[in-house]
């Protein structure tokens, strides 16, 4: 076998050295050029921030999301179907994991966040109580602990949703319902209903319930002022706005607060 002398142009060291030189040049060229390009053409920061926020929640899902690209809507739908299979079996950890996976893969639709929160807050406490022996066997205090734990999980999910996508009236309404029905926190629920009303296309009922909850909190004067400010904004021909009901409540509060007739609210309609 012919051997090339060491250090010659055809020696094995020369070949290795030239390979290394080639790779080093390519790496250096790409890095240098890339640095200039990245500096000149500032990438869209919003995308980076969004992926950063998602990463903080779940690095694995972030990787999955990045790879899926345009298929993420379909992938999220298939995962949601899979989640339902677990839901039917009352598989608590499986369902929770898949809810998180779905919203990590495709955080855009509010549907996943809202229904995920509903499952966490309303369905899973029932599963846990039944797993511990049923409603008759589990003491009220323990049931309350479970319900509060699950409600907090649901509220955390909705909070994450607002960090990753634009909040919607439906999300605030869902949060308010959980705070009201599961935590029994009327003040927090009132604040959330008010936020729901303040969102674009916020539902009229959210504003009405906010007024009603202020009454339940014994903040009658505040409730009265709120309803008085709300009434002129309600379209008279829209059934959903239910202006007559709001006016009836205003009158009720006037009686309760003993508002003199001269200072009473004038509907102007």
């Amino acid at each position, binding site marked *: 076998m012919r051997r090339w002398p060491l250090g010659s142009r055809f020696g094995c060291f020369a070949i290795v050295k030239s390979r290394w030189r*080639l790779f080093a040049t*390519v790496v250096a060229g*790409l890095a240098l050029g890339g640095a*200039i*390009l990245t500096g000149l053409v500032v990438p869209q920061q919003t995308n980076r921030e969004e992926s950063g926020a998602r990463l903080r929640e779940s690095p694995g899902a972030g990787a999955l999301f990045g790879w899926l690209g*345009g298929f993420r*809507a379909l992938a999220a739908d298939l995962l949601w179907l899979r989640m339902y299979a677990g839901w039917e079996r009352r598989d608590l950890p499986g369902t929770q994991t898949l809810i998180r996976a779905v919203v990590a893969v495709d955080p855009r639709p509010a549907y996943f966040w809202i229904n995920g929160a509903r499952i966490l807050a309303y369905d899973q406490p029932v599963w846990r109580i039944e797993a511990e022996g049923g409603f008759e066997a589990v003491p009220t205090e323990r049931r309350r602990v479970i319900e509060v734990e699950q409600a907090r999980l649901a509220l955390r999910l909705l909070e994450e949703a607002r960090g990753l996508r634009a909040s919607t009236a439906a999300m605030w309404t869902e949060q308010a319902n959980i705070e009201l029905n599961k935590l029994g926190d009327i003040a927090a629920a009132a604040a959330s209903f008010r936020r729901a009303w303040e969102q674009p296309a916020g539902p009229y009922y959210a504003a009405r319930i906010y007024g009603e909850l202020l009454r339940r909190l014994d903040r009658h004067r505040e409730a009265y002022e709120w309803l008085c400010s709300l009434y002129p904004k309600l379209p008279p021909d829209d059934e959903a706005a239910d202006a007559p009901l709001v006016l009836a409540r205003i009158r009720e509060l006037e009686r309760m607060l003993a508002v003199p007739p001269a200072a009473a609210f004038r509907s102007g309609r």
Partner: protein
Amino acid sequence: MTTVPFSLTRVGLIAAVTLREAVRQKLVAGLALIACGFVLGVRALRDFNFGAPELKFIADFGDGVIAGFGAVLTIVLLAQLFFGELESRTALTLLAKPVWRSEFLLGKFCGVVAVVVVFCVLLTATLSVVLWQRESALRVEGFATLPAGVGFDPGALWVAAWLHIVRLTVLAAGMMLVACIAQTQLYAIIVGFSGFVVCHLQHVAQGVYSRAGSSAMAWVATLIGWMFPDFHLFTLEAGGAWTFEGVARLTVYGAGYAALALGLAVWVFRHREI
């Protein structure tokens, strides 16, 4: 020895031959047909759709098909055409004539990019027809005024197509560099796909490295960030918001990376034993 000046005509001729060769390949026709089939058949998948409005789901799926199949087409086609020339020795015959190696590479690259452009335009046109047809059907079914953000925006769809073309052009240039370094077609394809995944997941790696809190890791992340273009930036959801300035910046960003990779590919190819 006299040298001939660099000629764009020769580049064009090589590109035309490459395009003709590519069109004759079963791979191109097969991938284009399968991708078209997916786009046309997306409505069959709407029963699986829960979260997104139907038109958005269709647009997203079509976008995924263009991105996925486009990447497969770019990587495999470029490797096949490049190594085909080397293995059949036609490259030797061609380069024995007064043809620059850079002309040969640029011609091959332009031919592949032409195929990619046709592929993206064909699929986007098909997707537009599917979306338009479905939107019309929804209106007939009673949704005379679709809620804001639910109807499809043809402008955004074509902007998304443009960004696909830019991204696949960068991929083709990167693949050309890999092909010039690699000794076998299989190796080039594997490295090409790996590079594609790295480019897509770069923003994830940046996040992970920055969370690690180690300065060495941060340097590695920065180096990777410079070496590989961030393909995540080119993702414009069909129907999503876009600005001319943003698209122009991304085009410059992509063109810069493509030029860089091609320049390095020419340098490597000039030092390569054929």
